[in-house]
């Protein structure tokens, strides 16, 4: 008896009880769907983040007040303080910025300074906005294009000008290109010079959604918000990517010295931000995978159940097959293949479902799940294994049936 015959028979018998097969397969379907969906979502988010951090540049160091990352002795990241600089007593000051600038190997740097207060335009306010004081180096540091207008230059650092994120344009000004419109911030008039291209979704470590940000010159921000010189973060670009680790260590020791021996700041390398978010994503993925494993188990038991019923129902068929010369082994493989086909069918439905779900996610959110053929192969392999493992007992039961007892059975 050939495999193809068995496949044919398996398809026939599944087709003859479609609803029952589908219900039995729910476990497998849910398992496969959740594995593929969660992994593809995780892959997609990771890819988006890595694109984003690549955009920030693999040569840019981010310096934040407070300890953002908890590392163990081996240097592995074991935790992250997501609250960031605002909640810590540690601060970064302009003198720290000066140290950054003086560190050899650092080619350029910029500081981000948060200014409190709400901007208003005519009667409108945008509550989610953040106003950030910074320097003209920012766009090149972020590798972000100004879509309309331009960023302020070195000669304009004393002027009340602003470059805004997309959401600010839409929510505060209710138009796409509010260039040369003016708004009020802390009683001062600011003129919009430019609008940034939309930033990709903010990563966990970034904290601020730059699409909601209003960027104004550093000195102006300092003067309108009462002269504070606390920095939200400092971005520094090294001149040689190869020396990134070296420069980062050097910078760290210089800052520790300036902070009287306290390491109350963090230097994030591009890989760190990626590693932290990837760690969290992996954790979530693992949790979903656990749920998927349980539903696969349920699915396997379902397959076993339906196959046991099927073996009992088809006792006379088994008797007839044995009477015309089927060996125990041939009966065994018939039922094994049937169980496997059943589970492949479940996996196929699961793959289709997860495809639809990720399409929905792409349409409804700005996340972009990536379904790789590896994960499809993995999910299908697992479900075939489940089919084989849980189909074994019923198949053995079928193969061991005594031909004469099976023939006497009234069931067909």
């Amino acid at each position, binding site marked *: 008896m050939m495999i193809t015959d068995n496949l044919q028979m398996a398809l026939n018998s599944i087709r003859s009880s479609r609803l029952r097969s589908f219900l039995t397969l729910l476990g497998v379907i849910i398992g496969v769907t959740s594995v593929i969906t969660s992994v593809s979502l995780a892959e997609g988010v990771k890819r988006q983040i890595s694109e984003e951090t690549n955009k920030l540049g693999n040569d840019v160091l981010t310096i934040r007040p407070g300890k953002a990352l908890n590392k163990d002795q081996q240097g592995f990241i074991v935790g992250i303080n997501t609250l960031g600089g605002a909640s810590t007593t540690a601060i970064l000051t302009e003198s720290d910025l000066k140290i950054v600038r003086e560190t050899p190997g650092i080619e350029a740097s910029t500081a981000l300074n948060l200014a409190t207060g709400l901007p208003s335009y005519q009667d409108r306010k945008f509550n989610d906005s953040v106003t950030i004081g910074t320097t003209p180096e920012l766009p090149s540091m972020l590798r972000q294009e100004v879509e309309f207008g331009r960023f302020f230059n070195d000669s304009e650092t004393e002027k009340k000008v602003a470059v805004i994120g997309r959401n600010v344009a839409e929510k505060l000004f209710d138009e796409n290109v509010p260039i040369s419109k003016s708004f009020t911030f802390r009683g001062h008039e600011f003129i919009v010079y430019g609008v940034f291209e939309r930033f990709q979704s903010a990563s966990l470590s970034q904290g601020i959604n730059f699409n909601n940000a209003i960027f104004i010159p550093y000195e102006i921000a300092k003067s309108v918000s009462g002269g504070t010189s606390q920095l939200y973060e400092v971005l520094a670009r090294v001149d040689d990517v190869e020396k990134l680790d070296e420069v980062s260590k050097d910078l760290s020791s210089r800052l520790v010295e300036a902070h009287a021996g306290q390491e109350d700041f963090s230097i994030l390398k591009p890989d760190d931000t990626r590693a932290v978010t990837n760690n969290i994503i992996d954790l979530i993925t693992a949790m979903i995978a656990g749920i998927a494993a349980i539903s696969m188990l349920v699915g396997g038991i379902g397959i076993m159940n339906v196959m046991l019923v099927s073996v009992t129902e088809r006792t006379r068929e088994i008797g007839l097959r044995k009477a015309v*010369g089927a060996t125990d082994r041939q009966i065994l493989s018939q039922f094994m293949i049937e169980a496997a086909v059943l589970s492949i069918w479940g996996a196929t439905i699961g793959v289709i479902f997860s495809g639809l779900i990720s399409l929905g996610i792409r349409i409804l959110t700005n996340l972009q799940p990536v379904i790789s053929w590896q994960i499809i192969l993995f999910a299908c392999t697992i479900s075939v294994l489940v089919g084989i493992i849980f189909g074994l007992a019923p198949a053995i039961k079928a193969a061991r049936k005594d031909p004469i007892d099976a023939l006497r059975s009234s069931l067909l």
Partner: protein
Amino acid sequence: MSVIKLHDVSKLYGFGDATTVALEDVELEIQKGEFVAVMGPSGSGKSTLLNIIGLLDHPSAGLYQLEGRSVEKLRSNARAKARRDKIGFVFQSFSLLPRLKVIDNVALPLAYKGRLLGRRMKHAHNMLERVGLADRAYYLPSQLSGGQLQRVAIARALINEPSIIIADEPTGNLDSASSRLVMELLSEIHKLGNTVLMVTHNPEITRYASRVLYMYDGSIEYDVQKSVGQLAKTPREPNLFAGENTDEDTLQSVSATMKLSDEKEGLLQPKKKKIRRKPRKKKFVGTTKGRSKSS
């Protein structure tokens, strides 16, 4: 060399007080080319005999040689292969797999033999042509009449050119016209040199046989060689074998016979479906139950 040789074959069911003797020290030899009809009342052990010969069942005691080779030591796998290659079965009903097309049913033994699909289909088609059902090859069994189903079953039984074709009441569920068709077919196969072993309750049908066995209570009581075309004559106790077309008739005639034999032994039993008899030989202690034909 005889195709089938049974020596002292017995079959017991159950144990202790509930032991049933289905076959008792059966001696039987069947030569190649014989058409053997087996008759006897319900519960006399005809099906049991055929199942043992067909390697579906194991004897409790005795020797069985198929084509000169003892089958005792055959493992399940070898028995399956022997069934596939040496034996063709036709059952009373439900002989075909309902979900397979007629041609696939016929080709099934070839499939288990590992023949390639094209060859299988060609061969099965030839077989269906021989039984006159080539035009029904792609029907499902549920779309055929009872007589057609039995002819398909015969085609399947023949496909591996077996040493013996075993048919347990192949015409049991058919009207006389369909019965005739099926019997003509078996007779034709016999004339081509095949060996046929068949159970029937219809004395008319023994016409086609070259030899008739009468079973009674697990033993072969009479073994008559006859020429094909003639009706078998029962030497004694004609009511044992006459008019057993229906269950009722069978039961009546069995009861009548029981009465006869019981009287001989000085014991009178009331007429009832389940007939209790004292064991005739001391070897087996227990009861023999009559089974209805339809079971």
